[in-house]
């Protein structure tokens, strides 16, 4: 009998570390432990050791890792000093984007067509680099406005920093998307976590070798896809906030989702909402925000509401409310104030830890408000369900009312209409009927949702998105984030661009050792405008966005 290929998924979350080992016939093993917050590497190593025997390790074909390392470094401000050199040209005052201790706006300007309006002052860049070196700053970030249209000035900064830096992030390599402030923030974070991430990566690589694991290794991104581990060493910022995406991809693996649907992950303190359109999870339009900083990091579109099992119940003049905060654990778990799970315990919907304490707590609060305990508990549960429903509806409304830019989309634009609700998380079962009633939709609780995050990590596919920009007047084609820059003839058309963008994407992935079929690539935006100078044609402005959308390697349903 041939040995089956194994997929190992690891999700090193803020609280728990989950791992699953998946074979041809489904889940072979799973493992859960409390994350060692101060030593994530150890959490990874222990998980691998516990979940797999020596024989199995040899058969692991793909090891996918979701880690909070970069997120934690940013949130806890364990960041290395970065010398940020930017040139912004005219527009919003660059001081508005100041970040970190070493932030240097320099001259130089590129316009929206990618034309250099004024050159960057290489001498002052050299002086700044020297100054940084004298302060022992060894990581850099270079960002110029419109560098996705013309990366020359970022490359000048890179050339000046060469030999004096350990690492430099160039804005145009992060994304083809416009958004100078986001580019600045993303480049800064990327450089600021580069060293700590690479230290971690070195340890992981050594450990895998030691454990005899020869698998292809990937890391999870916030868009629910993976990227090769080796590649992530240069863009560690791409690994932020991958945890929630891993759970959503887990649901995609556990259920055969083909329609519009909503996924709810009801946890202790929050309920996370994600949305699928036609079976594919929706992506955030511009990129995810971290610590109130919008970034260029692509992410699944999710939304979080302060309603979870431990959300505190309050009875006020206006009625009974739940959340958005928690006051320690639920009374059933030794807490002091009744929480949502206490209401469920009191009503006999669940039987969680000390049911009597829940009943007493609910009764005490009810007595204060002259209600029956039953009524108070019901009101609390209803309030939680109503809050979740309102937030889901608000999210759907946002999606359906998103701005569009053509008459065609304005008149024919598809509207999202969920057909099912997928619910996971501890209190999921208890909410099933209530949610079905509130939404008027069938509710599905996937099997094994406790390890959905690790399953999602194990089975997530590679994702990538690139943006081609061609100006046939200037005779140039650019795909900034995969470093493509070439000449095009004046007769270059949109059709050519759509073909080429796919070829470039396939070549890029091939270079990374990944094979993709053309069917995996998808053109998501495509436009060609005739540029007119006076009354004469001045060439075409062609833009094509191409991606490999998030998906799973196989389903477990």
């Amino acid at each position: 009998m041939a040995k089956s290929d194994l997929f190992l998924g690891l999700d090193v979350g803020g609280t728990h570390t989950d791992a699953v080992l998946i074979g041809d016939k489904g889940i072979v093993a799973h493992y859960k432990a409390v994350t060692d917050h101060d030593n994530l590497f150890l959490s990874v190593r222990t998980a691998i050791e516990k979940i797999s025997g020596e024989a199995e390790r040899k058969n692991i074909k793909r090891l996918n890792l979701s880690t909070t390392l970069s997120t934690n470094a940013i949130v806890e401000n364990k960041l290395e000093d970065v010398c940020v050199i930017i040139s912004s040209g005219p527009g919003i005052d660059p001081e508005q984007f100041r970040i970190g201790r070493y932030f240097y706006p320099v001259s130089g300007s590129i316009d929206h067509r990618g034309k250099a309006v004024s050159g960057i002052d290489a001498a002052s860049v050299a002086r700044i680099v020297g100054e940084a070196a004298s302060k022992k700053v060894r990581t850099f970030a270079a960002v110029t406005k419109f560098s996705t249209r013309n990366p020359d000035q970022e490359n000048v900064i890179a050339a000046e920093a060469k030999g004096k830096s350990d690492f430099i992030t160039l804005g145009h390599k992060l994304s083809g998307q416009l958004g100078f402030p986001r580019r600045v923030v993303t480049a800064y974070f990327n450089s600021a976590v580069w060293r700590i991430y690479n230290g971690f990566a070195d340890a992981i690589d050594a450990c895998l070798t030691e454990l005899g694991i020869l698998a292809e290794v990937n890391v999870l991104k916030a868009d629910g896809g993976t990227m090769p581990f080796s590649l992530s060493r240069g863009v560690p910022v791409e690994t932020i906030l991958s945890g929630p995406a891993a759970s959503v991809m887990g649901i995609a693996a556990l259920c055969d989702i083909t329609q519009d649907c909503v996924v709810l992950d009801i946890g202790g303190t929050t309920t996370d909402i994600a949305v699928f359109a036609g079976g594919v999870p929706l992506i955030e339009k511009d990129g995810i925000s971290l610590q109130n900083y919008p970034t260029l990091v692509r992410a699944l579109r999710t939304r979080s509401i302060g309603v979870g099992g431990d959300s505190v119940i309050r009875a006020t003049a206006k009625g009974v409310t739940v959340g958005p905060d928690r006051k320690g654990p639920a009374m059933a778990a030794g807490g002091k104030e009744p929480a949502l799970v206490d209401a469920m315990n009191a009503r006999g919907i669940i039987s969680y830890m000390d049911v009597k304490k829940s009943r007493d707590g609910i009764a005490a609060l009810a007595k204060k408000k002259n209600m029956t305990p039953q009524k108070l508990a019901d009101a609390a549960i209803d309030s939680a369900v109503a809050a979740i429903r309102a937030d889901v509806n608000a999210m759907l409304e946002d999606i359906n009312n998103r701005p569009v830019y053509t008459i065609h989309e304005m008149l024919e634009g598809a509207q999202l209409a969920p057909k099912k609700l997928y619910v996971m998380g501890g209190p999921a079962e208890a909410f099933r009927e209530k949610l079905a009633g509130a939404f008027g939709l069938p509710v599905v609780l996937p099997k094994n949702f406790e390890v959905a995050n690790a399953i999602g990590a194990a089975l997530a596919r590679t994702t990538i998105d690139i943006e081609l920009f061609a100006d046939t007047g200037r005779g140039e084609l650019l795909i900034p984030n995969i470093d493509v820059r070439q000449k095009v003839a004046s007769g270059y058309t949109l059709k050519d661009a759509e073909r080429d963008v796919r070829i470039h994407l396939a070549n890029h992935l091939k270079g990374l050792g990944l094979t993709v079929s053309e069917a995996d690539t998808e053109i998501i935006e495509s436009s060609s405008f005739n540029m007119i100078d006076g009354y004469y044609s001045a060439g075409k402005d062609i833009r094509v966005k191409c991606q490999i959308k998030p998906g799973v390697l196989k389903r477990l349903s």
Partner: protein
Amino acid sequence: MIQAKNRMGLIFFPAYDWAISPTHPEREERLLYTQDQLREEGIFDIDGLVEYKPDIATEEDVMRLHFCFPDVETVTTESHMISAGGAIKAARIVMEGQVDKAFALVRPPGHHAMKSVHGNRGFCNINNEAIMIEYIRDNYGVKKVAVVDTDCHHGDGSQDIYWNDPDVLYISIHQDGRTLYPGSGHVDELGGPNAAGKTINIPLPPETSDEGILYAIDEMVLPILKDFKPELIVNSAGQDNHYTDPITNMNFSAQGYAMLNEKLNPDIAVLEGGYSIQGALPYVNLGIILAMSGVDYSHVREPDYSAAALRQDPRIMDYIKKLKNTVLDAYRKPPRYEGLPPYGEFMKRKKNIFYDTDGIRETQMESILRCKECSGLFSLETYSTVCELSLGIEIPLGACPACQKEGVKQLNAAKKSGKYGTIQVIDRVKKEYYRV
């Protein structure tokens, strides 16, 4: 993140799939570079600035204002309904308190569209701002509105629509009509007998720069607004006073536009013309949006800006300074109309309108019942090279019972006569708008 001082709504609708014709200035990519600039600057991440999707104006929204011959569908496309709907959305979010200010960055424009519409003139079919203002007056009980039109071309459509309306102050700053389309907008065009002084025209000489335009704002527009005390200020934010505009001759800059907006402090701005789509619009729109949001705009500058090259000829300033008193007098002491028919009788006025874009010639006979109680029953007989003799009857906002009755009487007589291809009725009292 940058924080907006004013909560600001931006309705951005570039209509990337619509053009008048392939090389026409009003074509697909007109706002493409503006969108690039706004995205690159991170405008949509400013805290307090929210992007909204436009509404689609309904036939009723158009018929509340315009007489469309033969009907709304024939003289508009979807793009016009979305553009007008963008203005309506701007109004709704401001009036309902979701935002403090809103900018409808939409195309196609509207300020050359007059009361009666047979086709496209000056790139405009229906008047976005006027449709919006009438929507506001019908839905939110606002009475007094000021429109400040800062497009380089005289907004002859808006002037025509509000010519007889004392509650809508229309002020236009533009390149002198003796030197630019549509040729109108002279200082002595001051509004009809019911609304004398409520139309104000400030024609400026070619090559007027920031200094001259901002002087006109400070010394003419602002004092007039202060006196008029509008409940709402609307800016028809044309951007073709810019020094790079290909079809005009002024020397205004992005800084100038931003400062103008800050001084004017409009509640709602609606894009009009502006066809320097690479050299001006990205920077002018950026400046206007920052100014409206209350975010510092002092670093906004065109790549090729040169203060020296745009310095204004001193004779231009002398001219504008002299214009000041004429304009202020026109507002404060508009000349009385002599020889008007007595109350109870009709004032008549014949007009010939040329639709430059569509090549249509229209002839109108306008008639207003002189009324002591209200602004008077309005009717308009019209025919053109594309439309047979038709009639529009408007019972205006706040019409007295006698004028309402007269309207019904005219309608019945018109129906009976059988001589009109189309009859359109605007009954602002009953809020009924229909075609017969």
